[in-house]
């Protein structure tokens, strides 16, 4: 039981401590550590809240009292009352008012009285519909976030799914009734009623859209909850097998870990540390190197290239916008070549095949830079190949030396 003397006192108390109460309400299990609570409010406030049974202090934890939580749920969450929004009854009243309107017209009675009644009923419906929708939304969210167990959550969500179906039917019922009375509305030519009728029609359409997305949310929540129930059951079974030392023989866990070509590189799950390779990881540096290489390979711009200091100054982006320069990773081509393990074809032949437009000094520079940078991956022979008038050493994959010997010695 709450111990406040009046609603005003309760409102005042809640208003003064709204941040603190909100924090506790939104925390897990609606409880926080007392030290955290004292970081938000004074000790005297805690005592006052505890005295009024808004909070309870248990050991070192501050939690919202059960009676206060029930009070909040009752007034904030469970305000939805189907009886208040009995649309069949409302439209019966509208129908009756329409009948009385016609009777009054014939008997020269007070027709405005009946039109006012119709107007009043039409005006109330949109807000009632919105209340119903918001209430359902709150129910769904609250249940999904706060239900104590997954089974409870699932049952509640399935219940809401049915409520949403009912709500669709209500909207259909209202739409049909509006169509049914269309002739009457046109006959009376009353602008106030016509405005309410239009307003109600647009509300029904808008609420129907929201309802479709809410229904999808509920379906998703149900799926998530079912999956969560299944997953917890599955995990418990696996743990029991693990406790009985049977997980190796009775599950495919070992297959999943051992019979895979690739493994996740996760520090928490493995201890593997892969050595860094010599390939450039830093895109800025890589970019600058490639940029310089490209310029080095062009005799006409050689002088300009010498002014570019690798790793020291950022590249002027104007170069990039003014010149269309394709930056090619020749090391990548080399790796592709090495992966093919073709010991009869030299790297130069492969490079020419992959980059047919690369010729002359440009080819010479790219070739030499690549083979020198990756010398440890290659085997060099005494045969020479000519590029732009220069004799260049031939390069082949490092392993299986006998294949070179067969062909080149």
């Amino acid at each position, binding site marked *: 039981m709450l111990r406040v003397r009046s609603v005003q006192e309760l409102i005042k108390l809640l208003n003064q401590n709204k941040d603190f109460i909100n924090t506790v309400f939104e925390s897990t299990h609606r409880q926080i550590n007392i030290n955290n609570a004292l970081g938000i409010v004074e000790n005297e406030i805690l005592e006052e809240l505890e005295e009024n049974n808004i909070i309870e202090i248990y050991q070192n934890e501050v939690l919202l009292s059960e009676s206060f939580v029930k009070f909040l749920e009752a007034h904030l969450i469970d305000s939805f009352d189907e009886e208040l929004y009995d649309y069949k009854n409302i439209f019966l009243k509208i129908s009756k008012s329409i009948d009385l309107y016609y009777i009054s017209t014939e008997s020269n009675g007070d027709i405005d009285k009946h039109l006012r009644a119709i107007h009043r009923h039409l005006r109330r419906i949109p807000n009632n519909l919105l209340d119903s929708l918001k209430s359902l939304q709150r129910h769904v969210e609250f249940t999904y976030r706060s239900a104590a167990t997954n089974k409870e959550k699932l049952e509640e969500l399935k219940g809401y799914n049915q409520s949403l179906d009912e709500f669709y039917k209500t909207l259909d019922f209202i739409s049909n009734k509006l169509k049914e009375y269309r002739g009457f509305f046109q006959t009376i030519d009353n602008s106030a009623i016509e405005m309410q009728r239009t307003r109600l029609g647009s509300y029904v359409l808008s609420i129907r859209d929201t309802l479709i997305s809410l229904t999808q949310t509920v379906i998703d929540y149900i799926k998530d909850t079912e999956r969560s129930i299944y997953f917890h059951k599955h995990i418990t079974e696996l743990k029991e097998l693990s406790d009985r030392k049977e997980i190796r023989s009775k599950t495919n866990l070992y297959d999943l870990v051992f019979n895979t070509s690739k493994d996740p590189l996760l520090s928490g799950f493995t201890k593997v540390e892969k050595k860094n390779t010599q390939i450039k990881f830093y895109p800025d540096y*890589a970019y600058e190197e490639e940029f310089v290489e490209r310029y080095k390979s062009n005799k006409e711009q050689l002088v300009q290239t010498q002014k570019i200091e690798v790793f020291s100054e950022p590249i002027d982006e104007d170069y990039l916008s003014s010149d269309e320069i394709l930056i090619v990773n020749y*090391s990548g081509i080399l790796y592709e070549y090495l992966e093919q393990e073709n010991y009869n074809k030299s790297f130069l032949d492969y490079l020419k095949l992959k980059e047919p437009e690369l010729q002359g000094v440009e080819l010479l520079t790219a070739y030499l830079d690549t083979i020198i940078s990756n010398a440890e991956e290659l085997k060099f022979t005494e045969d020479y190949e000519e590029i732009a008038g220069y004799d260049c050493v031939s390069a082949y994959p490092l392993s299986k030396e006998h294949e070179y010997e067969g062909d080149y010695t």
Partner: protein
Amino acid sequence: MIIDTNKLPNDTKEIFDTLRNGNFIVDNHPEKAHRNMFFTCDSYYDTLLNYFAPLGYDLERGDGYFLFYTQGMNEATKEHRINQLLNILNVVDLLLGVFPNFSVGWKGSPSDLLMSLKGDTLRSEQLEKMRGIKGKTLLERSNSVFEVMYKYGCIIPIEDKFNNYIVSSAYNYVTEFFEAVQRINVEDE
């Protein structure tokens, strides 16, 4: 393979370093810089995939996370990985039992676990006997549970005044892995 390094995003280095050190990149990390790395991975997935592949790292996309896969893991390391997975199995079983809503996005702290375990003798004993968990008191062991989950990348500290953690999308990796673990040799039972 030809890679146009001009097309690489600016934070390629950060992404590479994060993943190569055995971490996840997740979409719900409390730090914006980290979330930006996720969005970069998402937007430049093919470019980064091709850039990292020659280095021996396969960039893999999961449900809200990215990680590296690699080849050549030896048997001892795989055995170690299984032990780690069994440890996390115990921890996840405990957390799901105590917090039914424990999933991606859930927020909580060791003191939440401590409070829930105080009235739950069965699970308190479970935690007492759990391997891979350090500490003598229930509070120390509750802290250790969160440290273990943090080590696996499944939870991330929010750095608020309540010492809360948030379950990251990397937890999806754990659920996907254990969902793939199925019973075999059932007819022998």
